[in-house]
């Protein structure tokens, strides 16, 4: 009996570990690479909507394990997290949502703690705290030498152009075969 409870608990733990942040879904068909490199050998071709366990991240790549136990690397941008890879973090609809918690059945309105809309609307300016913030300000010279010590080096990188006005079409179908990318 005790044995039973332990396996049950372990199963629960494993299930919890595999959910949310640690799993993802492919938004398009993608090759699973042996290494985080485009010209690395392909382990297999993964179809769109494959569920993956996330192992690690490096550069533009994510190390994953497939449901069939294969390991390898896919591009980060081919993966979406959240429930079933769908919409994920919702929008306005979630405001003031009421949820019922576990066995107690207590109803609580979420969003009551922390920095809520009401708290910002009712806030009184705290200039003493602003003065404190100013004391932590550092010069760009100091920040540059600190960054150098941390091993960071400046790069010359042009901005990627973004055309405003295309936002309404945010429901771009990333799974469309026209939009495939390795």
């Amino acid at each position, binding site marked *: 009996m005790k044995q039973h409870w332990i396996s049950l608990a372990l199963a629960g733990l494993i299930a919890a570990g595999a959910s949310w942040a640690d799993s*993802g879904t492919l938004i398009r068909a993608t090759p699973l690479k042996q290494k985080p490199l485009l010209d690395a050998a392909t382990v297999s071709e993964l179809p769109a909507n494959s569920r993956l366990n996330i192992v690690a991240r490096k*550069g*533009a790549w994510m190390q994953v394990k497939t449901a069939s136990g294969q390991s390898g690397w896919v591009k*980060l*941008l081919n*993966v*979406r*997290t*959240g429930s079933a890879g769908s*919409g*994920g*973090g*919702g*929008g*306005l609809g*979630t*405001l003031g*949502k009421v949820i019922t918690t576990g066995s107690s059945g207590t109803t609580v309105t*979420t*969003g*009551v*703690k*922390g*920095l*809520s809309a009401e708290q*910002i*609307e009712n*806030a*009184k*300016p*705290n*200039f003493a*705290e*602003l003065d*404190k*913030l100013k004391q*932590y*300000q*550092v010069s*760009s010279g100091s*920040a*540059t030498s600190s*960054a150098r*010590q*941390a*091993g*960071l080096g*400046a*790069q010359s*990188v042009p901005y*990627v152009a*973004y055309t*405003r*006005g295309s*936002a*309404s079409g*945010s429901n*771009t179908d*990333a799974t469309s075969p026209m939009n495939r*990318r390795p």
Partner: protein
Amino acid sequence: MKQNLISLALATLLVAPLTHALDLGKLVDELNKNPDLVNAVSGAVQNTIDANRTIGPKEEAAIGDGLAANLLGAAPLVNDAALQRYVNQVGAWVASRSEAPNLSWRFGVIDSPNVNGFATPGGTILITRGLYQKLNDEAELAGVLAHEISHVLLHHHIRAIQAGKGREAMGNALQGFASYKQGDTARQIGANALSGMSEVFVRGLDKDDEYEADIRGMALAARAGYNPYALVSVLQALSAINPADGTVQLMFSTHPAPNDRLNKIDQVVGDKLERYATGAEETQRFYRLK
């Protein structure tokens, strides 16, 4: 020249009651060319003019300070000097790689379990403890700060206030500027005007503003030597939070869904920044907050 502009402005004011819309537009144009001129003009239309014109850098800084004071009134700084100094070192370094390295850039972590970040005009940026604790390395912090820095560089909040509900409050604040004493102008704006303008943090920006800040922020983080795709990891982590969780409600209600932001990055940036993906991720100085 200045004299000339003043007469022009005054002349326009005089005809304003007759042909108001068009001439007011012209006047606003003149004022945009020379923001200082505003102080020389007075009258009933002042408020409308103020709410429409280009805001000068000093006014932006004063409004930004006032808005930051208001946010700090809602949640004070995390009482951890080492954390605050670290965030300033990273933020100032990223900002130094931007087109406005000499703005008064300041960064702070505020004591709230909510997951959110706020940029105020003029360069003061606040992120919550809840967001900081989601970050795995310095590249992710740089990605978040570069997003907020981009909002400042692109004047997104000032423009949103001008176009939205805070417009009248900003008109009031700006009208006061002429009479403010030298020194700490932010304190003289007044709690009512600050409260009105703070509405922008509750209503949020345009979706385009958010996408633009993500995309420009990625290049900015790369300029500072970080892996620009660290922002993708942050957005994937945010996407994994249950939207019903109270700590993300304000952020989710004021931003496009994380997956929409990822789709936009996928579509616009894609692999364009991959040559910089070998940039730094973990650093020894990364400050872990218990």
